[in-house]
């Protein structure tokens, strides 16, 4: 079933929407959650909570790309859950990825709508300037929280190649943000 039909089921308040979502996206959502939580069971709970959120938010939402809509929900839920239980846990992919990325930022504040717009333009123009493979590596590491080994396997690269690319991309992003006058 394609995304449009699934979203239609949500709008019709037809519970098959959850079943079809589960059938199509469970593995994908668990992958995102597990990259952050490193726990199959906790990830499963997060995915179930995602369905509940989707049920509560569609309608009024009518996402064009259901995978990304759900992906954002599950990612945020997993991060919340991770932060809540952080004290008991060792570093996982999420922490390691953030540690890498936080090297490039200062401790600034971004609260106004204008800041948000500037930030959105900056990050997307940065990504748009990159070759596809570099963009994929960057987002798989910092948005999907994949391990560097996973990224290497998925893209037919060596792990060292991925790590070096990430290091260069971080430096490039830092320069780009500075140029745009953004302090995170």
């Amino acid at each position, binding site marked *: 079933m394609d995304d449009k039909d699934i979203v239609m089921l949500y709008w019709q308040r037809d519970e098959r929407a959850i079943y079809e979502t589960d059938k199509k996206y469970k593995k994908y959502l668990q992958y995102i959650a597990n990259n952050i939580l490193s726990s199959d069971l906790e990830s499963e709970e997060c995915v179930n909570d995602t369905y509940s959120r989707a*049920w509560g938010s569609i309608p009024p939402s009518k996402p064009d790309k259901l995978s990304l809509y759900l992906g954002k929900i599950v990612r945020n839920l997993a991060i919340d859950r991770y932060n809540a239980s952080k004290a008991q846990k*060792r570093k996982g992919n999420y922490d390691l990825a953030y540690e890498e990325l936080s090297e490039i930022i200062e401790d600034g504040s971004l609260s106004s709508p204008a800041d948000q717009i500037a930030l959105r333009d900056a990050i997307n123009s940065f990504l748009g300037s990159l070759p596809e493979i570099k963009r994929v590596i960057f987002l798989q590491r*910092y948005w999907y929280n994949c391990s560097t080994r996973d990224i290497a396997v998925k893209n037919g690269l060596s792990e060292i190649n991925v790590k070096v690319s990430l290091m260069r991309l971080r430096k490039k992003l830092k320069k780009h943000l500075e140029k745009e006058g953004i302090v995170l």
Partner: protein
Amino acid sequence: MKNDNLDKMLNLVDDKYLGEANPENTQVGQKSNKTLKWSTVALCACLVLLVLNVGILIPFLNRSNDDPLIPGPDGEGDVIVEVPGNESLNWEASEPQTSVPSDYDEIKAEIDALWELNDVKEEINNEAVKDQINDALEDESQEGSSESIGKQEQGVIKPTTDNQVDGVEEADIIKRTSTHIFYLRGKFLSVYKIDGASTKKVSSYALGGIIQKINEKIKSSYEDDKKEDIIDDSYVGSYNWEMLLVDGGKTINIITQSDAVCPHVTIISLNVENPENISLKRVVTTLGRYETSRVVNNEILLFTTSSAGGFFLPQYNDGNGYKYLPKDKIFVPDSGVYSTNSYMVIQRLDAKTLDTNDAVAFYSYGRGEVISYNTDIMEITRAGAADKPIIYVSNENIYITRTYRIITNWGRSVSKDACEITRISYTDSTLSYAKDQYIVLDGYLNNQYSLDERDGILRVVTTINERGYDEINEKYVTTVSASIYCVSINEMKTVGRNTNFAPNGERVRSVRFDGNYAYVCTAVAFTDPVFRFNLTYPTNIGYIKTDDISGYSTSLIQLGNGYVLGIGYGETSQSLKVEVYKQSGDELISVDSYEVENAYFSEEYKSYFIDREKGLIGIGVTHYAYSGDEAHRYLLLRFDGTKITEQLNTTLTGTRSLTRAVLIGEHLMLFSDTQFKIVSVGFFDDIFTN
């Protein structure tokens, strides 16, 4: 603030870029399958040449003589590896292969060659590993028993875990004796002294320090300047802890998995003879990923899987250091299917001392990481389902399984899932396997409850998942259904079957065997029938079933007296339904059901409390009708032969999969990762006899 801002920034990334980077999409730069097939031939040739000339394709080679514990990385960067004879090799030179030899003889020859190369190093680790264990023992006073008080005698073991097979104990996060309850709360073992309503925590034992020490030891085996690059997944989660209570209640063995540097399993053995003054007995670390464990007759059966990009030899820790398994203990499947470059290692340890009595390894039975492979007639790929190996242990045999997809047409349009089941006998002092002791069945398994052994017959339920071509109507046809098989365990041949019994589209959701009967729940959406098969005559398998009922069961549990309990979903995925079935004439009927809407529950079977004699069922749910912490509820239900009634509905915070309950007298003790609670529920008479 930093993390908040990073989150804000990442949440603003354009959807088109996120879609492009979706890890499930076609990968940038990855070779096509066809290219892979050709490159396989070249890689195999390279592999043989490398083994003959250099012998470096051994990811688990030890680094140096004073680096005891640690296997080599599986293809990490440019780490310099020391090998016997002071040859210095650049690890990058042994970049992992993505394919493996396709032929049984080739693989055996590679294993034999690798073994010869490494045979001489067998004993080098012993002293340093002993040092590591001693370090942990010396630090015992700092790590544990911080809340210990006076001497208390331990009682006898009482059952807490609802084991699949009587006499085959499964690991869990709760265990108890007649006097004390042990609950693993993450990296802390909490001990409760049983005293009715006054039951309370009397001591705890911190385990994190021991694990930290072992992880640090592993990390320190790498060169200092490489640490940051190499340490990747160092997460030690609270979920990955389980324990086994053995030795008449005097010893607890805690098993945990860590991914620091390389996946490894640690068993921490504690003396709990005096539960209020626990002491460390021994620590043993072994390689690989923890899959599961059992205790039978005071022996632990430990199942681990290892995988690496290149060819390697399986190792195990016999308690005195790492050793390569002898050649005659490494088995290569005779089925001709080598789907992943990995092993499953089965270790048999003395439950009291953790000495290893035996170990065997099965090539290609690990978790699927590499998609491969082809033979002359078919291609094998990783199946969509069942990434995790499913393991079933009866009183006499171990059954290990793997699932793959057989593609019989290079256009990838005609294909089916298949599961391969291998039998290993453990009735003798050794783990014995004969080359023909395997069977390949159509379909994939749901979980361990899909398998059951009785009177020399292995009974198996699978979900069929096939795609074929209808030449008359000129279209592709997908079949999703369920099948049940009876397999003679002596020959590992099918003696009876009932195939595709479920309506097309329905997959197996839960299975439970009860004597000569098998109960199977199948569903396509939130509607299921439950089937009951009569397996008295394996060559003639008949069944009765319910009408379609809303919802489906994720667990089926035999209650005895012909009743079967289903725990699962009601009309939606946001509901809990508990239902009891029984035969009535030629039908299987629903006796009664209990449903909570707008609720979420865990599918983890071990989190349920089941008391068959008293007809009690306990389960943790999150009920969205309540708010805040109140939403986390624990329900105690009772089936009295005709009705299911709610006996208790109380708050219990914490993760639903980690809730456990113990009923002692009139008190129900509730445990979770965040709370301990005692509720007086009154005395329940026995209703059923089992």
